[in-house]
């Protein structure tokens, strides 16, 4: 068990809390004792700077660690907060009580403004775009001397004044900064442990699957980006109160590099990682200062050693040395049963989709009745998966309509029927290549399907365990998804789709790679699911599995319906035999 737990990618999930955060608590107590009893003014200053970077990195952990988006704008948000405090404090005479909220709001507003277009970009394009934001803000700061003091910056930023008390340098300032770290860390930790954090982690691991599980990927990413900006702004404001001067250096790339390095060395996605990383990496160069310029070499070697020895960061190393105990499984609880549907549930009319010059789906129409099992067959490239993608919203049709219980859910820019909305309306699906988050347990993966409808993680997990039990897979619950063989991965993915309690279930080659016994077992489960009123559309190549299971079969070829009738007629239909089954199968 220890081995399997240690293989998990670092997340903010519950199983990691005990050891990692426990050791961090010891470190925090030691730091408090050091600060209060031993540290010189210099030591307190370094500790204060470490607190500032810890706060900025906690925010970065949300968007980068949990959300998986390499935002290189965190340095810009840090700088925006710094300049808001610097300008308002030194030029307008505002006090901390007024400048601090503004320093949170300015980066928040910028994040919301630029986030909408930028967050649509994929991985490295997103990183480059966010880097561009930082460059633009830096140029504005340097070339607006009337407002920002230009390249010289603005001196004379006042210190923090709280309720009339001017916080002096040293221990009081360090205590204030670390209080903000504690508050910020607690908020981030709570968010990450909850449904929002789980949902964000799933968006990081598999955004396509997240959408089909009812999660609004765009909104989750935007919220994470905006939240990270607030943390960045808060850290920037505190940095300026510590330095008493603001200059373009707060917007330069080294700030971003420091935050990124702290996150990676500390442990990606972990609040504890941000704190440990900041304390270590801000102190590390100070320990080697006596080496004059050679300290950079030693610093670089130390960093390299840290990354090689602890590839998952310091918190990952702690987890490896002190593996956390697995959390106890919840008591399974059956989720509330929705009103069973009757009659036609899904109606597809004249559906069409082209990719360039290729007509992938061409005038497909079909109807799924509640409780029915419909087979969708055809040669590779005939358009089967594209039909499922069109129905689930991952692709947008060029023509045709899709009605779910009479409601038009055809995905388009105008209608706004994105995958998450379609999923929430009652359509669930599985994928041809099973898609499960590698760092999650089976229970986590299935509970993810309940995040948008259950009130808490505990409730979602109790429901998820019940669903796993229905598929005779409850014993898999604590196992990491990454360790499962193909057949069990398919079972878990089916459980996840089933946890949505859909009215329509789209299964893309569910029997691929299964043994005969496993296929028979799967068929039993699918019949049981249909018996509850769910309409099933099963894409499959294995006629021996599908034809006895399905009540109705459609065969596609080059995007068009070749056959639409009972399963008994498939093998005898000359067009199906010619295009798909071959003469020997008839």
């Amino acid at each position: 068990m220890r081995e399997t737990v240690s293989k998990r990618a670092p997340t903010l999930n519950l199983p990691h809390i005990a050891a990692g955060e426990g050791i961090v608590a010891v470190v925090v107590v030691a730091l408090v004792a050091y600060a209060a009893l031993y540290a010189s003014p210099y030591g307190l200053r370094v500790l204060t700077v470490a607190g500032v970077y810890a706060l900025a990195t906690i925010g970065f952990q949300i968007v980068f660690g949990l959300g998986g988006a390499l935002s290189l704008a965190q340095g810009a948000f840090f700088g925006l907060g710094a300049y808001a405090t610097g300008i308002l404090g030194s030029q307008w005479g505002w006090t901390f009580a007024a400048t601090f909220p503004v320093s949170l709001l300015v980066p928040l507003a910028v994040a919301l403004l630029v986030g909408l277009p930028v967050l649509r970009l994929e991985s490295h394009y997103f990183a480059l775009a966010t880097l561009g934001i930082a460059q633009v803000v830096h140029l504005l700061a340097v070339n607006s001397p009337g407002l920002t003091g230009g390249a010289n910056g603005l001196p004379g930023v006042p210190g923090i004044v709280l309720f009339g008390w001017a916080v002096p340098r040293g221990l009081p300032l360090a205590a204030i900064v670390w209080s903000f770290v504690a508050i910020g860390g607690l908020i981030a930790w709570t968010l990450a442990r909850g449904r929002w954090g789980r949902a964000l982690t799933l968006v990081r691991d598999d955004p396509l699957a997240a959408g089909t599980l009812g999660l609004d990927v765009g909104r989750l990413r935007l919220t994470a980006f905006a939240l990270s900006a607030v943390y960045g702004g808060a850290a920037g404001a505190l940095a300026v109160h510590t330095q008493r001067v603001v200059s373009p250096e707060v917007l330069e790339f080294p700030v971003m590099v420091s935050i990124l390095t702290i996150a990676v060395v500390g442990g990606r996605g972990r609040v504890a990682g941000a704190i440990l990383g900041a304390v270590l990496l801000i102190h590390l160069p100070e320990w080697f200062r006596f080496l004059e310029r050679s300290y950079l070499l030693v610093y670089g070697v130390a960093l390299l050693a840290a990354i090689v020895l602890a590839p998952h960061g310091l918190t990952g190393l702690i987890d490896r040395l002190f593996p956390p105990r697995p959390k106890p499984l919840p008591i399974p609880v059956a989720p509330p049963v929705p009103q069973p549907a009757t009659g036609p549930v899904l109606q597809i009319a004249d559906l069409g989709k082209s990719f360039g010059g290729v007509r992938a789906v061409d005038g497909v129409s079909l109807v799924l009745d509640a409780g029915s099992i419909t087979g969708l067959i055809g040669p590779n490239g005939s358009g089967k998966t594209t039909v499922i993608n069109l129905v689930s919203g991952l692709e947008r049709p060029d023509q045709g309509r899709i009605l779910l219980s009479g409601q038009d859910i055809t995905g388009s820019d105008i209608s706004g029927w994105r995958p998450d909305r379609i999923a929430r309306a009652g359509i669930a699906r599985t994928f041809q290549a099973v898609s499960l988050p590698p760092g999650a347990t089976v229970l986590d993966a299935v509970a993810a399907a309940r995040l948008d409808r259950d009130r808490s993680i505990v409730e979602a997990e109790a429901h998820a365990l019940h669903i796993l039990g229905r598929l005779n897979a409850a014993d898999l619950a604590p196992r990491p998804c990454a360790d499962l063989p193909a057949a069990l991965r398919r079972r878990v993915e089916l459980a996840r789709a089933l946890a949505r309690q859909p009215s329509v279930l789209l299964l893309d080659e569910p029997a691929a790679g299964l043994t005969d016994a496993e296929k028979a077992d799967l068929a039993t489960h699918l019949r049981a699911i249909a018996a509850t009123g769910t309409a099933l559309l099963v894409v499959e190549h294995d006629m021996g599995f599908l034809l006895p299971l399905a009540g109705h079969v459609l065969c596609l070829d080059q995007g068009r319906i070749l056959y639409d009738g009972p399963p008994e007629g498939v093998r005898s239909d000359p067009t199906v035999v010619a295009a798909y089954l071959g003469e020997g199968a008839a």
Partner: protein
Amino acid sequence: MRRLLPVLLGLAIAAAGPARAESLSFPVLVPLTGFLSLEGTSQRNGAVLALKDAPASVTISSDVIDTGTSPEAAVTALERAAGRNVAAVAASMLGTQMLAMLPLAAEYKIPLVTVSGTASITEQGNPWVFRFFPGDAVTKEAHARYVVEELGKKRPALIYQTTAYGQSGKAHLTEAFKSLGADLVFEEGVDPAAKDLLPVLTKALAAKPDVLVLHLHSGPTALFIRQAAANGVEVPIVAGSAMHQPSTAALLEPAELKGVCAETAASPISGGSPEVEDFTAAYRSAFNTEPDAFALGQYDGMRMVLEAVKAGARTPDDIRKALSTGTHRGLAMTYRSDGKGNMAHSAVIVCYDGTSRVPKIAKRYDNVTGVVK
């Protein structure tokens, strides 16, 4: 008791022993890494060379701490140094770092001895800063006066850097040229990271200037001059102080430097007096490199501090008073505070003849007020 007597006597003698020299610390907090590492290293070397020859009555210690180029690192370095019987600090030449260090220096009451040219560091009303390098008000007046009065040019084109150094110089040059009746026909700021300055050179020439005035850092200065030479530009170039640095000249062939002039506080490799030549020889011997005006300015500054110590100053406040009120005949010039901590009021113009990388002093400007009339 008789047995104890020799022991007590021995202890008393040991305690009375030869008088121990007082210990004073002069930390050197300069940028040794980052884009100002060349200049910062010159600062370091100048300070270290000066501190080698301390008065016999005191023991000198001097930690060298890299401040990088961020204000945060500079303040942290000052906080680190402050707790160690500090008498004065050789402080960074980077203006933003100085601005960040000033409040802390005032709080700890520690004199900062610097060669920063950023005008605003002596405009904060802080009595603990002393600048041993002419500020932009001085050097840019000399720069503009040489262009207008000596070269007779009336249509200057200004290319400056988009940094604190560049923006400060640009403001003073614009004002000085305006006062001299030679309004700029072109001005443009360039990023220090720009890898090709031909576009800005082309645009500047399109404005038909009769002189190209540069206020760029070392690398961009060399790049601009190389590209101007390669394109056969015949308009004279009068550059900023970065050009006088031997490390800048080393990036160019002597022929490319023909006719190029530059303003600076001093050019130790150009000689001028036996004392300056001795300094240059000692510097080469100690650091195996050529000294520049920053090294000489920092050297002069720390020598003035040590003169104060030799005269009896033992506390930071003693040294502050000595620097505030005294006069020091340094190697580059004679230093005296203007009441704000500006100690240097002279500048020189050096020019290259195209046969070597060692410039000759073409014009000296003393007692420059910074107000062009």
